[in-house]
């Protein structure tokens, strides 16, 4: 019996797999690899597994974490090998280890956000965005769990934004609060759209780079 944590990549086609479908995919993958995930007790037993900070559909990540419990002890190296043999394109398991740190110690999300401008990055974009993200508060409209729209200030959740340019892309490397509440880096584009509509990108691509603890070290 073990409580394990698995780190995996989710990118390319797999970026479009929803959270629920991803859970199903892992469940089947475990079975293919011959591993039985422990099930909950009770009337409708479900496998004891959970994905930390579910990723929005369409975003990619090199640092997803999945916690699960097993019935037997597991040879993690062999498990990784056999799981990677039968994954959908774009999912790859990197590591698997015993859970030692509680999820609440996960504090910061490190991500790369690409703003694509089909007509080239506007000359003043960097400067204006830098100004925008250093304001006291940045209010955007966000859909709440109850489906209503509410004003949210995303500024307190924003720790750092670095800029770079690459062809028709403005690349933002960001550190944002990961949870309670967490900030979806895609909302930076929402803020731009609201405050600087002329700088609204034609397409936004988000990629998670790392999950960090409060001290800025990798959360494992």
């Amino acid at each position, binding site marked *: 019996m073990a409580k394990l944590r698995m780190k995996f990549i989710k990118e390319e086609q797999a970026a479009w797999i929803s959270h629920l479908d991803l859970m199903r995919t892992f469940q089947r*993958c475990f079975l*293919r690899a011959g591993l039985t995930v422990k099930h909950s007790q009770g009337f409708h037993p479900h496998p004891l597994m959970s994905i930390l900070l579910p990723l929005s*559909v369409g975003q990619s990540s090199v640092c997803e974490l999945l916690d699960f419990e097993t019935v037997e002890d597991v040879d993690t190296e062999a498990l990784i090998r056999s799981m990677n043999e039968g994954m*959908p394109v774009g999912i790859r398991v990197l590591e698997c280890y015993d859970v030692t740190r509680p999820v609440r110690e996960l504090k910061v999300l490190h991500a790369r956000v690409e703003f694509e401008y089909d007509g080239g990055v506007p000359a003043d974009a960097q400067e204006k965005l830098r100004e925008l993200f250093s304001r006291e508060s940045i209010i955007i409209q966000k859909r709440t769990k109850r489906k209503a729209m509410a004003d949210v200030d995303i500024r307190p959740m924003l720790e750092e934004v670095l800029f770079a340019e690459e062809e028709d892309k403005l690349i933002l490397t960001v550190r944002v609060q990961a949870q309670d509440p967490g900030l979806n880096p895609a909302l930076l584009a929402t803020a731009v759209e609201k405050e600087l509509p002329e700088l609204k990108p034609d397409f936004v691509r988000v990629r998670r780079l790392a999950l960090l603890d409060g001290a800025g070290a990798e959360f494992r």
Partner: protein
Amino acid sequence: MDKRLERILPRVQKPARYTGGEYNAVMKNRDEVEVRYAFCFPDTYEIGMSNLGMRILYGIMNEMEGVWCERVFAPWGDMEEEMRKSGMPLYALESGDPIRDFDMVGFSVGYEMAFPAMLNMLDLAGIPLRTEERTALSPIVYAGGSAMYNCEPIAEFIDFASIGEGEDSTVEVIELYRRAKREGWDKPRFLREVAQIPGIYVPSLYDVSYNDDGTVAAITAKDGAPAKVTKRIVQDMNKAYYPAKTIVPTTEIVQDRVSLELFRGCIRGCRFCQAGYIYRPVRNRDPELCAEYARQACADSGYQEMTLSSLSSSDYPGLLPLCDELEPFCEGRHINMNLPSLRADNFSMGLMQRLAKGRKTGLTFAPEAGTQRLRDVINKNVTEEALMQSCATAFAGGYNAVKLYFMLGLPTETDEDVLGIAEVANHVVHCWRENAANHNRGLRVTVSTSWFVPKPHTAFQWEAQIPKEEYERRVELLRGAMKAKAVTYNWHAPDTSFMEAVLSRGDRRLGKVLYRAWELGSKLDAWEDYFSLERWMQAFADCGIDPHFYANRERSRDEVLPWSVIDCGVREDYLWNERQRAYEETTTPDCRSACGACGASRLIGRKCDG
């Protein structure tokens, strides 16, 4: 990933169905491939991926050296709109390449209502719709699947049709195409040659003439095409390909489980049932082999659910040995087995318990008709006694939901037969009162009726569909008679059934109606979301064609039926005789009890398995 696609996906529902990349999807090197094959299913990904036949042929084709078969499904409306807006042509899921550049485009068409989706997919691909507009050897566009037993309505769009089970003929067709490509044949030469492959029907090689009354006068083969095209079948199910290693979708599909095929064909001989006739004769797969495939498929996919998928799975002679064999394996891996088609007469509680492992889902029965007289007419050899027996056992065992399926408008149906349906429902309620293990949970009986559609290659292929007003009158009659509180009555919206009746027995002249309906916006017409009878009626009016000629007209014995070139193995005489017996209310024994010499056994050159 294609940049246009990446930008479209955030805006459409369920994007994962448009990306490919699933486990076991076959990837090949474009440079090493000689024949690119787009395997098209004219419905959504969720429906198409649930089709076992498609998985079989996908596996067989990709085992061929130099051939790459990729999947293509119909996009949902939102996706189609985005694709058209961004100028993105229909692409294959594996490579993402536009299918207009492929060598062959093969459709799998299981029902007539998918015809408009087929046209729409061709258009979305940028492939000309009509065979005469496609003058080059590539892409060749053809279709297979059970709707091809009468493909006349789409005759002007397809280059040819593959009749029957495609395991062998698909390989032969692709090999011929490969030769044609190497030797630089033109398309007419390829079509003449492909017509020589048994089971291949090339509509353009048959001239159809008409009588003054609109019926077909004659169908004449030319350029050496055979007068009759006999369907192909797999001779030996123990040697037939089974896709034990098959694609596992990353998004939920309709049949999201292992599908285990036990046998092909059906011993029963229900007179209305096209599947029952066209899949003859019965060919069984050995239970040991089925068990082996089941184990392989579950282990490879990681599925924990399995369906026994044959026409009437509980008729399988090896069912008990198969369950014995699989029980320990399924227990160990928490795998549930489902049996979709239950018959009231051979249902046993023991069997049910073993299959469902204590999960007391509802029971489903299809008596099809409300009285014994009418069940005799249609040869649905289920007695009410047997049905009640099964219900009693089930209720005693704790079941409390029953679904009953019936048809309205069957030949010879009277009001008494219609009211008989309500009586059956009442008897089920009564049976529950008498037998239920636990009355506290209450009973749910759902009665559903559909409007009978006469199908080609059945004993009722000459029948008229009853008029819509009459169908609606019978629905009302039945509705008034459904009094018990535990009973819910659902009736099928009639408009689709009417169009099915038109298209399934249509001739070539419906091609222009189909084209017009597509122009007016028909696409995923198998879905209520998209179906519109008004649009079809508009198309009929624009083309000057009367749909009732096809749906509501009784044919005479000597009429040349538009699908008469196609030989499904069962002789037309036999079907006519079955129709006579129907009117005499005489039943015909099932194939296991007594062979009725329908003609199908000549396809295997031995006695049918039964």
